[in-house]
């Protein structure tokens, strides 16, 4: 494992050199859509050998989870170093070696609420991309009103017996483990009888059936539990105290969503103007001729910039040791709606070329753009809908009455 300088600016030079030496050159091409994302897990098929090599090298250096402690497979970097790392990756157009619920959701939650044994059991596998996780929160009858969930776990010796159904479980068919909310005390009030349980997807009685989406793919599933036996030691946090853990995880989820869809993380992107120049008439200086399109592009880019600055402001405040301000509650709403607008604008720019579903006459980029647009409609639903987020802002930040 390389040793890096703890001073952020000295670190910048070191990490840049390390990145240039270790990230395989064929990966340095900006792309649209999520075809190139490395999710990891036992069932994951790499699209090319470079991805595999990049993941192995990054994991070895602890850079898949830069800020996690080294003993659990992380890089042990400071917040400031991690920021430099992501800046340098963006500058060099280097894709993240690994993405997934393990790194962004269950990992940070285990660091916060897991016991030593749980951390040692799960975190290294996440960092190395060996174990992929999925999220079992929603049920057919419990969406926005998550606390009304019914999936139940009953004690039997050293185990729980889990019965019930989860729905919209993204990538359950590809995942190795699931973190699920289960009812452990049916008598208690809604929020108080819930526990946060880790379940191996290979356990007998777990079954998944994929659901086809408007984008044509089937990234999410219905997950059934039928007399599934799970060790009691797999509860994270307190028994019947799962709601607290669940909410902490939702915070990680929302900041992840804001990150990937707003600016910052995710795959390196081409500028909207460069994209537009491929489709729209321009003069010899590359100025787009249609003033209405220009205005739309500027509107989008400026909104994206203001959002990026707000994310930065929030991080700067956190680094200066200040409490995260109320601004952080807007990231989920605005970041996801911005991502939807990004896709809509790209469709309008591409015009009829954005209408492809498959087959001839459309480039693979165009086909994936169309599907990415359809997928983006879910951004304002998943992880708590925009309406629910606005309710939260009104209540918690603006102190408006119930």
């Amino acid at each position, binding site marked *: 494992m390389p040793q890096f300088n703890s001073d952020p600016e000295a670190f910048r030079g070191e990490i840049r050199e390390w990145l240039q030496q270790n990230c395989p050159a064929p990966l340095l091409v900006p792309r649209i859509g999520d075809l190139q994302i490395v999710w990891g897990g036992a069932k994951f098929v790499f699209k090319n050998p470079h991805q595999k090599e990049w993941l192995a090298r990054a994991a070895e250096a602890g850079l898949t989870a830069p800020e996690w402690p080294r003993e659990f497979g992380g890089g042990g970097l400071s917040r400031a170093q991690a920021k430099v790392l992501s800046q340098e990756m963006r500058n060099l157009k280097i894709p993240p070696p690994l993405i997934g619920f393990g790194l962004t959701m269950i990992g940070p939650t285990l660091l916060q609420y897991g016991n030593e044994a749980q951390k040692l059991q799960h975190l290294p596998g996440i960092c190395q991309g060996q174990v992929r996780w999925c999220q079992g929160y929603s049920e057919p009858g419990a969406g926005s009103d998550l606390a009304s969930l019914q999936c139940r776990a009953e004690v039997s010796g050293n185990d729980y017996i889990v019965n019930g159904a989860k729905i919209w479980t993204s990538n359950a068919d590809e995942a190795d483990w699931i973190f699920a909310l289960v009812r452990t005390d049916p008598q208690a009030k809604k929020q108080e009888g819930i526990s946060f349980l880790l379940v191996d997807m290979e356990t007998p009685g777990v079954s998944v059936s994929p659901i086809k989406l408007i984008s044509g793919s089937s990234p999410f599933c219905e997950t059934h539990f039928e007399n599934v036996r799970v060790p009691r030691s797999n509860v994270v946090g307190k028994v019947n105290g799962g709601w607290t853990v669940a909410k902490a995880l939702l915070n990680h989820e929302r900041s992840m969503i804001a990150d990937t869809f707003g600016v910052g993380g995710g795959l390196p992107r081409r500028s909207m103007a460069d994209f537009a120049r491929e489709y729209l008439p*321009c003069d010899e200086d590359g100025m787009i001729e249609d003033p209405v399109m220009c205005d739309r592009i*500027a*509107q989008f880019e*400026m909104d994206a910039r203001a959002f990026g600055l*707000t994310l930065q402001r929030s991080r700067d405040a956190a680094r200066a040791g200040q409490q995260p301000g*109320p*601004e952080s509650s807007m990231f989920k709403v605005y970041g996801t709606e911005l991502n939807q607008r990004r896709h809509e604008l790209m469709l309008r720019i591409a015009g009829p070329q954005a209408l492809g579903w498959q087959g001839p006459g459309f480039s693979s980029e165009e086909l994936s753009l169309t599907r990415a647009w359809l997928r983006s409609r879910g951004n304002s639903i998943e992880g708590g809908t925009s309406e629910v987020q606005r*309710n939260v*802002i009104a209540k918690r930040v603006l102190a408006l009455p119930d």
Partner: protein
Amino acid sequence: MSLALTEEQEFIARTAADFVAQKSPLSRVRELRDSGDELGWSRALYKEMAELGWLGIATPEALGGAGMGFAELALIMEELGRTLAPEPLLSCVLMGGQALQLAAQSGTEADLQRAEVWLPKICAGEAVIALAHQEESNRYELDECDTSFRVESGGHFILDGKKIQVLDGHKPDAFIVSAENEDGELSLFWMPADSGNFSTQRQFRVDCRSAAILELNGVRLPPDAMLGKPGLGGELLEQVMLRATTGLCAEMLGGMQQAFHLTLEHLRSREQFGVLIGSFQALKHRAANIFIEIELARSAVRAAAHALDTLSGEDPELAKLVSLAKARCSEGYLLASNEGVQMFGGVGMTDEYDIGLYLKRARAAELSFGDAAHHRERWAELSGY
């Protein structure tokens, strides 16, 4: 560059907030308006602001200021904007004063001397300098100017033309006037109040900001009246307006917050159908949207103010951030005040309630120094598309 406030900046903001709360309530603006006050603002209070060091906060110590920056000045403008304080910080400190300050950095010996005489007076609240660049036909284009200048034998300048909505321009100690020569070269001129051959007429704007028409009928100015080097006046004006626009944005940020604050208080206290109207989700979600707009505006204003302190004037990134701030603040302030009037209901339409004052200021500020569409166009141009 960090967008979080330092402890010192937080202290400045808190001090300004306390001062504004005690000494500059909104009722003062009403009194000045209703009494038809000749000046439209208070010299005594302006002097107090000077004593707190506010007027010179972004001016070098050598020129009578505190040598801090625009990040700090923006915090003060934000607080003053909360109660629509009418003192001439925007016109005199950010427009007139910055024109002198910038000219002194790059100009001639005469510019330096002028700055050494006048900036300490501006910082002390003892002089008001108005910048006259707005005309009937140039809207937001800084490089368009119908006012003309020509050079007489002996090097004197002769100015002719008409300026409108010169902020705090009815009784200043001096004007800085933009004018063009035959070759279309724009310059700024120092025109003391005792120059002859001009007249002013007070204008009354919807937002109570003092303004005036300035008519120039062959004003004769000495050879050292030109600010900066010949031919570079357009660039100078551009730089001045980046600063002024950022200052205006900070003021707008304060105003939209206060308008929103009043609205939230109303939502938490007015009852209909036996419940507080703030419990209606239709209103809650709109309030959440205003909140988001304000947070985005805050980030943009802070980034623009920081950029003024850290980037060179020619860096397109600076101009882009200023345009971002103005576009956001224009839309954010309008949203907060339009929605505010709507959520107040009937009383929102009365002169007695304060929300209407914010509606007027929001519109006036939007249509000053370029509206959102103007700044989007600028952003696109600066970005090369």
